[in-house]
């Protein structure tokens, strides 16, 4: 087998890559559905119906996509600079911690100021959570993958301590949860009688801002340059360390916003299970979007569709809900291959 670089990269191939990857994942996933003994076509139809079939399902899918857009952006921007931030899960919880700390009565502002303020402190906390790994990377050359991964466990244990100890709501009947966010800080609903909140708007604005920065500003240019070739970037006069640190802080900030929107937008208080792995799923979102900030919105919607749909599908045909996680894992692997095939061709000899 020989791998050859294509002379030119056709745009239709790039556009088709995620479609091909998704198709491959669904095809491989159907083996698992067959193994259970369920009809594949019906199962996938139930999945789509469960995610898009009613107005309630639609709002649920949109609601689920909000944290995924934020963590997807966090992964997309960091991976662009080849800074492998796998700690979005922990940074998400740091953002949630900050929103809970300031939002449960410590400070009271009118809603127009309170919500932006909570988002600001959440983003700062998320960025701060990444400060240690990135400084260790730039100054001591400690691999960021392992440090960010390990910090996830540390941060989650710390949240557990706060929720079982000093931050526990005395009115919560023994459940480890915090007090509620004050009314001024709660995101308004986007659709009445649903769980869909203004976080969706903020997430879309975040994507647009992120794309604008990547496409039209010097910072964005530097991030892309460092990701392509750090030595060439250094030669061109870009301070690589500064760029990596800046990228990391922005990435952590986006992950922190995911935590704010789950606490102040969806739940109204902090629990230990506000994120069923949104930080890790964000990596899949970013990869499916080929690290493009605007495409992150689409791929987050798609993955949230799989999660919401898998819930109702598994109830109907008795397939374990873990099928959604399996499909997400498969899509990370298949997008790698399909993106590669846009640039290379395989020749069998």
């Amino acid at each position, binding site marked *: 087998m020989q791998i050859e670089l294509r002379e030119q990269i056709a745009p239709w191939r790039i556009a088709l890559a995620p479609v091909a990857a998704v198709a491959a994942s669904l095809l491989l996933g159907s083996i698992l559905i067959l193994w259970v003994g369920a009809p594949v076509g019906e199962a996938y139809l139930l999945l789509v119906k469960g995610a898009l079939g009613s107005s309630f399902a639609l709002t649920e899918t949109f609601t689920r996509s909000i944290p995924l857009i934020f963590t997807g952006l966090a992964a997309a921007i960091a991976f662009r600079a080849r800074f492998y931030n796998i700690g979005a899960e922990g940074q998400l919880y740091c953002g949630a911690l900050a929103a809970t700390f300031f939002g449960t009565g410590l400070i009271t502002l009118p809603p127009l100021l309170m919500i932006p303020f909570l988002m600001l402190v959440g983003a700062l906390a998320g960025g701060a959570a990444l400060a240690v790994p990135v400084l*260790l990377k730039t100054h001591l050359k400690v691999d960021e993958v*392992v440090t960010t991964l*390990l910090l996830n466990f540390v941060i989650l244990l710390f949240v557990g301590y706060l929720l079982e100890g000093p931050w526990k709501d005395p009115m919560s009947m023994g459940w480890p949860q915090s007090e509620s966010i004050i009314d001024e800080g709660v995101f308004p609903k986007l659709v009445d009688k649903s769980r869909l909140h203004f976080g969706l708007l903020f997430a879309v604005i975040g994507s647009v801002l992120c794309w604008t920065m990547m496409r039209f500003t010097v910072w964005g240019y530097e991030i892309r340059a460092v990701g392509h070739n750090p030595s060439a970037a250094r030669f061109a006069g870009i301070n690589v360390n500064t760029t990596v640190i800046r990228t990391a802080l922005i990435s952590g900030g986006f992950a922190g916003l995911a935590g704010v929107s789950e606490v102040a937008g969806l739940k109204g208080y902090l629990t230990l299970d506000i994120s069923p792995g949104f930080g890790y799923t964000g990596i899949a979102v970013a990869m499916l979007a080929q690290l493009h900030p605007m495409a992150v919105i689409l791929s987050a919607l798609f993955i949230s569709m799989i999660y919401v749909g898998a819930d109702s599908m598994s109830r109907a045909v008795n397939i374990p809900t873990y099928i959604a996680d*399996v499909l997400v894992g498969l899509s990370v692997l298949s997008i790698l291959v399909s993106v590669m095939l846009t640039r290379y061709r395989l020749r069998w000899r």
Partner: protein
Amino acid sequence: MLDIIDILVSAGFWAATLRIVSPLILGTLGELICERAGVLNLGIEGIMTMGAMCGWMWVYMGGDLWSGVLFAAFVGALFGLLHSGFTVYLGLSQHVTGIGITLFASSLSYYVFRMLLPDATTPPKIIPFQPYKIPFLSDIPIVGEALFSQTPLTYLALSLVPAVWYVLYKTPVGLAVRMAGENPMAVEAQGINVLSIRTGAVMVGSAFMAVGGAFITMSAFDAFYFGMINGRGWICVALVIFASWRPGKALIGALLFAGLDALQVRAQQMAGAIIPYQFFLMLPYILSIVAMVIMARRASYPQALLTPFRRGERT
């Protein structure tokens, strides 16, 4: 202070240390073999979960313990083949592939577990490996009780350390593996296929990881829980760096780490009223980060780690 000395001379503490260290040794050796051949394997967390599920399920379905270990190793090697197909043959990002394999393998383990045991509310149990007292040696006070009254998988893990050292440093295969991680061009110049060497190393390493996972469900505990690997794989990746990619140092690092972990559990019982238990549970993860920071300056990465090799292409 006297309490700590009491703990350190108790056989129970050392026995616990060896129990904790076994999966870490297996995982660390596995990762070390992969990285020595030039391939970072971040699939470790998922492969350990897979091994834990497969070995346990094999026994639960009626197989015997040792064939369960072999089955886990076989499935681990399959995932190693998948990883090397992506990273060695296609030259894709080792970081992203590894994370993808972890996501895929751990969710697949849970899926298969739920599919085969849909109604299990309390985790079903198997009869795990029992401690095997080595005749005569186990009669030595303290040392005998701690070192020579372990389960067979612990003996296996400990004996794999010199075995891996011997193969890596004293055999032609080991030389080829190390060279594939340092200078693949030179390997190719000797007429040895770099891609095959790397694939073989990743498959063997992944089999080690899976057996490490199987230790947890088949020797340390008797059931499979969700999230039971709990970051052990990532700790192994940190331990490889701490050990500067040497099997002997990996053993020392893992022992140090497991000892502190065993101490932490006992300290928790004494000081649990004053310090919340979560802070004790944080220690292993924080220690791993500290270990990496200490060794970072001296770390001598295999030169070709993370670099895919394509025949006839300059690097």
